[in-house]
């Protein structure tokens, strides 16, 4: 068991000595995105190659969590971020692995694997030079992509568990004061002051007390929490142990959905190791403090991310919310005082204890302190995971870090806050991103999904998408949400199918407000947001669907038709090869024609044609 800073440091220096003996370190991203693009084959190819060269014990090859630049995965980084290779093994795995080995042996940088920017001919060698990385401030993610998450010594070598030791020698109120003064607000969506919540829970009557982490992440299109749990699980455990000590809890749970098997695996391993080293369990670090953490695997219901539903779920019941006339800090899990925070909130805690609340307080905007992790996805060039100081503008995120819109199409909107959030149009791109500004625009910070939409995204269809999601995910306990959201979906679906009528928009607004006011939990209370915000900023698109039976973005299938323009068609046959129903006919070098009766309007021909000959109208 480790009981002192000195012992922590000796583990750290010993580990550093061990790694310093290697000639080189190679970090291969094995986050979910890169694994999907084939990172594991790169890892196997590289380790086998190094063995063949007799270099196996000279080079340390690490499997790390997400580096952020998922769109360009698999990502491989050398040394202390000296060289970054992207799309490794995508085209030719053997040649790329040979390049990796050549980089190690001859320090030869492989041009073809470097990141290419917007500027012609410019290649970036170090990730620090790439705008995607240089524009970020990485705190929570600082070790994501650097650590082997399955090795606790790596975390300790980076100063891990030092904050826990420090906190255990502070008084609980001192810790709570620090967290409160830092200005940390919950990263799970609501933005509630963390220190205030901890204090209420500490003061609540009842024993035992529970400290929980919310790693449910039900938002479609968001993967921040997942990447954190997979990439740096110890940071979450350390934060929870500090919180538990401050609040006076002896037992905690991390709620992770069963669909995140890698996160469950990494967290379980981390818990086991933390117990071995005396960071969890009985008599933590020899201070007499007992706290342990177990994992609870959720069942993939969005509503289970809501605090009271999550608690019901851990109690072994269906995950239905209950009304909050008593607060969970007073009566939560098994009716005992319970403190729930999002996993990213927990991962911020060790940094605040380590560097002080003044440091934390100095980043961010006046009422939203610190940094926030976002998953930047959709029609943006550099999709991936980013961490930025709060107060940065949407434009900086989308254009400087994200590299702008894919295919240089026109930006239309950015959706934040998931199903509880809304769409923000171009005129507000200069808005700072923080809890309060986004709420003012009828959207939300949410847990950090940021979805970029371009001219080929139909806002009415997006509203329908979220409504459909919410109809399926509503637990059905209260009528306004169960029936009201369903009704909204029916209306929007009708509009998308070309059967909208005058008055629909007003009806939606009225219904939306009623649902917001009368639903039991946050799901229903925010369910109308995606519709209300698209009506607010994109009303003309609703009008086009309703009055002109036209879908300006060319998405709503009942309102569009695919056509090949004979003047532009070169007869290259690409479209015919892509058409899933084989309804495009034409000779090589001859004009192609679509059999309208069989066309499913999937748009594959439009995407395939390089001559702009396919027209959607």
């Amino acid at each position: 068991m480790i009981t002192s800073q000195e012992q922590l440091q000796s583990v750290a220096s010993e580990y550093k000595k061990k790694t310093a003996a290697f000639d080189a370190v190679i970090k291969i991203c094995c986050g979910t995105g890169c694994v999907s693009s084939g990172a594991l084959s790169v890892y196997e190819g590289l380790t086998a190659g190094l063995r063949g060269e007799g270099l196996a014990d000279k080079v340390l090859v690490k499997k790390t969590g997400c580096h952020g630049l998922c769109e360009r995965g698999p990502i491989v980084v050398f040394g202390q971020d000296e060289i970054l290779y992207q799309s490794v093994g995508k085209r030719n795995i053997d040649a790329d692995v040979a390049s990796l080995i050549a980089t190690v042996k001859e320090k030869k940088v492989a041009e073809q694997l470097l990141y290419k920017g917007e500027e012609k001919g410019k290649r970036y060698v170090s990730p620090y030079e790439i705008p995607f990385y240089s524009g970020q401030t990485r705190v929570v993610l600082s070790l994501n992509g650097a650590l082997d998450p399955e090795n606790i010594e790596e975390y300790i070598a980076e100063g891990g568990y030092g904050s826990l030791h420090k906190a255990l020698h502070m008084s609980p109120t001192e810790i709570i004061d620090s967290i409160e003064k830092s200005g940390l607000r919950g990263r799970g969506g609501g933005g509630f002051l963390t220190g205030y919540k901890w204090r209420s829970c500490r003061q609540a009557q009842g024993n035992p007390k529970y400290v929980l982490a919310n790693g449910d992440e039900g938002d479609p299109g968001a993967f921040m929490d997942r990447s954190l749990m997979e990439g740096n699980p110890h940071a979450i455990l350390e934060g929870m142990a500090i919180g538990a000590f401050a609040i006076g809890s002896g037992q905690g749970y991390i709620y992770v959905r069963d669909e995140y098997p890698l996160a469950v695996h990494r967290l379980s391993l981390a818990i086991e190791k933390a117990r071995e080293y005396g960071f969890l369990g009985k008599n933590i670090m020899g201070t007499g403090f007992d706290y342990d953490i177990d994992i609870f695997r959720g069942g993939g219901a969005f509503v289970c991310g809501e605090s009271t539903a999550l608690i019901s779920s851990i109690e072994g019941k269906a995950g239905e919310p209950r009304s909050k006339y008593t607060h969970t800090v007073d009566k939560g899990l098994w009716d005992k005082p319970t403190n729930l925070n999002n996993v990213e909130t927990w991962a911020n805690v060790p940094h605040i204890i380590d560097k002080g609340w003044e440091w934390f307080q100095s980043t961010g905007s006046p009422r939203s302190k610190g940094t926030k992790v976002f998953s930047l996805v959709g029609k943006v060039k550099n999709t991936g995971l980013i961490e930025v100081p709060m107060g940065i503008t949407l434009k900086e995120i989308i254009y400087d870090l994200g590299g702008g819109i894919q295919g240089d199409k026109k930006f239309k909107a950015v959706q934040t806050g998931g199903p509880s959030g809304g769409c923000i149009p171009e005129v507000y791109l200069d808005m700072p991103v923080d809890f309060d500004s986004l709420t003012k625009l009828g959207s939300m910070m949410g847990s950090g999904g940021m979805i970029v939409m371009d001219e080929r995204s139909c806002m009415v269809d997006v509203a329908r998408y979220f409504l459909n999601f919410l109809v399926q995910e509503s637990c059905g306990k209260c009528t306004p949400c169960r029936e009201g959201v369903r009704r909204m979906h029916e209306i929007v679906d009708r509009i998308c199918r070309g059967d909208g009528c005058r008055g629909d928009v007003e009806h939606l607004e009225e219904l939306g407000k009623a649902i917001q006011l009368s639903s039991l939990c946050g799901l229903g209370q925010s369910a109308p947001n995606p519709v209300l915000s698209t009506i607010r900023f994109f009303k003309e698109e609703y009008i086009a669907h309703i009055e002109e039976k036209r879908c300006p973005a060319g998405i709503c299938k009942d309102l569009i038709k695919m056509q090949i323009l004979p003047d532009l068609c070169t007869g290259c046959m690409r479209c015919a090869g892509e058409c899933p129903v084989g309804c495009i006919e034409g000779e090589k070098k001859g004009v192609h024609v679509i059999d309208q009766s069989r066309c499913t309007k999937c748009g594959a021909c439009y995407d395939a044609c390089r001559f702009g000959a396919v027209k959607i109208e």
Partner: protein
Amino acid sequence: MEVNSERLHEIINKYHGSASHLLAMFQDIQREYRYVPKEAIKFVAGELNMPLAKAYEVVTFYKALSLTPRGRHTVHVCMGTACHLRGGTNILDAFERELSVGVGETTENGLFTLETVNCLGACALAPLVRVEEKDFGKTTPGGVKKIINEFSGGEPS
């Protein structure tokens, strides 16, 4: 459906027979049978001394649990926001057409069950399809046949 009561006992004991781990027990049972058989629900409810309705409530509430048998391979088509925007519905349409089944259904030969998920966490590769452990990123409607073929190799179709 015949269930192996010894194995069910093992699963229940793994969680010390505590009803608060009902969901975890059913998840383990599903790993065993690839769905949750009715008989298993009855067995667990009996062992834990809880009303059958309570046990059913949990099984039916969580989407991750299935009450109907599943095919050999489960095709997960991502319907998350990122995948939706990049054409996920067209991918789903193509699977429905090629496999002649709807979402949640299993093909007649028992080879494939078609499911949707709300995000697989690799949104940069949207639209994404996962079959068993294998991910297919940036899929196109035309590429669906190939994915199906990869998993039906040698099997009578």
